[in-house]
């Protein structure tokens, strides 16, 4: 247990050095700031609609994925680039545990940063309109979104130095453009999957949510199943790569 704990703690520490953490947190605060600026003259349903639109478009659709992509790609990718992979690979730790812990640590780091954004947006909504009921739903959506992006990016980051670029193209071009135009493809848009659990957990979400989710429907189970499946597939794939590929 001690090697796993040490690997987890050090991985978290590597993922979030002070300067990077400050930048990530500032990115997460942008949606809350935009919300405060845009809802000063709005009340009730209009404010709720803004909360969902900004939460989906800026927090789940931008701030959380960007952080998760960077953290996921760097989990093993940075160890490979910095030539420190041999330091953790030459240990009596199964490759599957190595892959599992590195991925889990990246998920926790991305979720923790994303939760700051969810909390900030939720607090902004409370300050403006006194409604705190959506914070938990947004926090769960952040976890799902962060988990999905991070899980996919860990093996991709290990595979190629261009993982971040590839993921950004996917996020901005495919999810932002193609999926918006073809809602049927929403099932392969991680942040929309996160939004679907928000729709299931939030009480009385506004109609704009259906439009943002594309072909997805609010569900509390399917997104969590997706998280587990994607994590398992990611760890299995990373394990195979750690076993098959030359690590130095």
């Amino acid at each position: 247990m001690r090697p796993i704990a040490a690997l987890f703690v050090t991985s978290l520490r590597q993922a979030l050095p002070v300067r990077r953490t400050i930048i990530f947190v500032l990115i997460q605060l942008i949606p809350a700031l935009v919300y405060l600026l845009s809802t000063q003259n709005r009340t009730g349903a209009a404010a709720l609609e803004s909360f969902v639109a900004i939460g989906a478009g800026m927090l789940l659709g931008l701030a959380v994925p960007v952080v998760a992509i960077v953290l996921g790609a760097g989990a093993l990718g940075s160890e490979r680039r910095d030539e420190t992979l041999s330091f953790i690979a030459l240990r009596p730790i199964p490759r599957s545990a190595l892959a599992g812990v590195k991925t889990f640590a990246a998920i926790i780091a991305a979720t923790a940063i994303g939760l700051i954004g969810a909390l900030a947006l939720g607090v902004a909504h409370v300050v403006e309109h006194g409604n705190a009921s959506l914070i938990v739903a947004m926090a769960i959506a952040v976890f799902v979104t962060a988990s999905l992006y991070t899980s996919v990016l860990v093996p991709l980051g290990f595979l190629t130095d261009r993982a971040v670029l590839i993921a950004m193209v996917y996020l901005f071009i495919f999810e932002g453009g193609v999926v918006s135009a073809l809602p049927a493809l929403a099932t392969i848009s991680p942040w929309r999957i996160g939004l679907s659990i928000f729709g299931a957990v939030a009480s009385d979400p506004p109609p704009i949510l259906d439009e943002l989710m594309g072909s997805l429907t609010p569900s509390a189970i399917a997104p969590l199943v997706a998280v587990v499946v994607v994590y398992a597939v990611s760890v299995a794939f990373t394990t195979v790569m750690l076993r098959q590929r030359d690590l130095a």
Partner: protein
Amino acid sequence: MSKWFGQKVAVSGLSCSFGPGVTGLLGPNGAGKTTLFRMITGLTSVSNGKITVLGKNPRTSTSVFASVALVPDEDAVYGDLTGRQFVRYSAALSNVTDRDKPEEALSVVQMGDAADRAIGGYSKGMRQRIKVAAAIVTDPDVLILDEPLNGTDPIQRAHLIELFEGFGEQGKTVIVSSHVLEEVERVSDRVVAIVDGRLAAAGSVEAIRASMHDIPYVVRISTDAPRRLGAALFESSAAMSVTGTDDGISVSTNDITTLGKDTPRMAADIGARITGFRPQDQSLESVFRYLVEGR
């Protein structure tokens, strides 16, 4: 075993073994030493052949790393960790439960004073020593050191060599590669030489030199009568050629034992006094040069 990367053959048909004691791994740059180390530790796959470490395949059995440690040539360190954190991390990853071990390892490599500084600010020599500390903290049975003396000053170098010798004397298997041949010679019980990815020689330096039948030994003999002794030695069946030097003669021979017997006898016969009888090319450096040049 063999290893190739695309069209490039890094190691070709190499067969060797390493046992308790210190073995020096020699080879010019690009000979395949680092590739061999990576194959031994399972970091790199073997294209053809087989490697076993403590009876297990290091590529598939991670349990073997409870007993194996590598000090790589590259700076495989975390620049933002302090030396102490790095060594403790290494101990934790290898499930070392003795909490005093990291401090002991830091002390052994004389890094106690700098242990609370970030590794990113270390000199090359300090990085080498902290990597050694991170390896020995796991108390490995097999210690693999890839150019561990790079960047170290003479005092640190002497200390590390002493340390490696100590591990060898404890019965651990220590494999050390270094381009500092005289230090490899000092520390190693035997050497394995690789040239162009192939095994060039293995064994003690003396045994390897003795096996080079086609390369005559050169012996420098100091004497007060070089001309007369040189002429006399032409009569010895062991002397292949004799040339004059500043303080005596230089003799080529394929039979150094016979030459060693003939020389004092012949010197006595002609009344010459011998003040030195020194083989010139039995050092590791000479042997290595012969191996690399394929002479």
